[in-house]
């Protein structure tokens, strides 16, 4: 299988993948992704990686939509909407995708399937994982898609942690 990375930065509609842990702070990547657009607009994919349950019953009733709904908080949702209205002309679409694979090949396939052109990852921020999710950064680093690392000053334990107000500080 040959992989040709899409390095055409000038393409009118690029697709940028960013990992997310559904915290307000991780939306810094979302803002950076929108900020990076010079021409045209961008499709943004917020990636969440989750391990599927081993139970057959759980798998039978598994639905990505329900899973995303259970993870997205109203505040996170509002924060995304604020960013989207700020960059209304630059963000063509934004959606949340769940990756449930185990292998690098599966991840590569996932990236190609979603036509990802670029990936933004945090430099010093580590994603807050819950008990089902796992960190996609190792997979991302090994993939053939260009990666940009974003550095920002971490907010730490501030009073507005995970409130809408936090969004205005990052």
């Amino acid at each position, binding site marked *: 299988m040959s992989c040709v990375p899409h390095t055409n930065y000038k393409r009118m509609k690029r697709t940028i993948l960013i990992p997310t842990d559904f915290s307000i702070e991780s939306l810094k990547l979302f803002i950076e992704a929108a900020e990076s657009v010079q021409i045209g607009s961008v499709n943004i994919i917020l990636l969440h990686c989750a391990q599927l349950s081993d139970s057959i019953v759980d798998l039978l009733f598994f639905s990505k939509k329900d899973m995303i709904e259970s993870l997205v908080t109203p505040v996170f949702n509002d924060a995304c909407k*604020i960013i989207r209205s*700020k960059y209304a002309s630059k963000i063509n679409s934004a959606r949340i995708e769940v990756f449930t694979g185990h292998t690098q090949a599966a991840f590569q396939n996932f990236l190609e399937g979603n036509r990802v052109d670029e990936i933004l990852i945090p430099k010093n921020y580590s994603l807050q994982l819950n008990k089902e999710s796992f960190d996609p950064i190792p997979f991302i680093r090994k993939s053939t898609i260009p990666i940009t690392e974003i550095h920002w000053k971490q907010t730490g334990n501030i*009073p507005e942690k995970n409130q809408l107000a936090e969004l*205005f500080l990052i």
Partner: protein
Amino acid sequence: MRTQTKIALIFFLVSLSTIIFLSASVYYFIIRYSFSDFYKRLEIRGVVTAKAILDEEEASSAVLQEVRELHLEKLPEEQEYFFEITPAKDFAAEAQTLDIPLSFFENILKNGEATHQNNSTFYAGIKFQSKKGLYAVVVSAENYYNDHHLRYLQNIFLFGILAASIFSFSISIVFSRQVFNPVKEITDRVNEISTQNLHLRLESKKINDEISELETTFNNMLDRLETAFETQNNFISNASHELSTPLTTIIGEADVALAKERNTKEYIESLSVIVNEAERLEKITKSLLFLAQTGFTGSTLKFDKVRIDQLLWDVKETIDKLNPKNKVQLNLSLMPEDPAKLKIKGNEQLLLLALTNIVNNACKYSNNQIVTVSIGTLEEKVIIVVKDSGIGIPENELKFIYDPFFRASNTKEFEGYGIGLPLTRNIVRLHQGEILVSSRVNEGTIVQLTFPVGHYTVG
């Protein structure tokens, strides 16, 4: 009619109608069964008798006769009739003598059998082919069942229904009492509670049923009522205290000045104190008046389109005039591209007052540290976030911040009357907005205001 009586009556009627329906259907099916059974018996008798009498073979005839005597009980009023069937025969005469309709005989000829009931006498007829020729055999007897057993059954059912209805009536009364007992208890208990003893609560049982839910709801309502009552009481005491403090100062100062003749400098000093206090008094009464006005439905208020970013610049300007040392920063990094989303429907004067209040508080309680004011919009909402790094509000006092004249325990060294925030909340409510205050002591306070977008077109 009381609900308790209603429920008892419904319960009683339902059980009674079930019993009646069951008895009636049992009675009906028993009657049907006993009739058809009796006709079968008559037919068998007819066949046996016909064989015994009409067939002339001595041996078999005797045997049959014996069987008949031994095993077939003689039915009351049992009669057998034999009529030879010849092609030309009509049974008019026979029908006449037996007092049965002619159709009975016609049925025998046509179907080979027929039944007829004449009061309590039952007739069964069959067509019988004997060696002598074709015969119509008619057997009649009185139905003992019909006369005695069914009457007995009727009596059983009548008395049964009567007994069951008395039983279900008493059960339904007990049942409805049982059901409404807790409700009655609640009514009695709530009746005991008046303004004098608002602290009383209903005893909530641990079981999670509808009644305990009702109790919890009542208790919650009482909690709110008690808080409202206390707020009202506090308001009056606070207001009179706030108003009397400057008055006392004015009277005291004037008294001291009038006690003896003083020089001009001392008079000026006294008068300036009096003016200061009088101004404070005026400020309090003015803001009280405003609070009262905004507390109304606001039908007289004029609502027009207001651009939130413009409003915030105006707020900053006002603050700059009031407090030149302020460090208010407007954060427009997440302003939407579409200016239409920034327009809300509102009264500019009131909004300016509300926002100035909040931003001024932020400056005041953080000793003029940096205060950031940010704007963001969702599809339907405009969000304004005011953040300071001031003294904060203790967590257990957050719920009182909208009470008029309430001041948090850590605000002793700051001047204020505790009218600003309730006033702001009234204004925000007038605009169908929301106000959300979160705070940590000594770390800062975040006020988040949300207003619905006005849906004005650009231009």
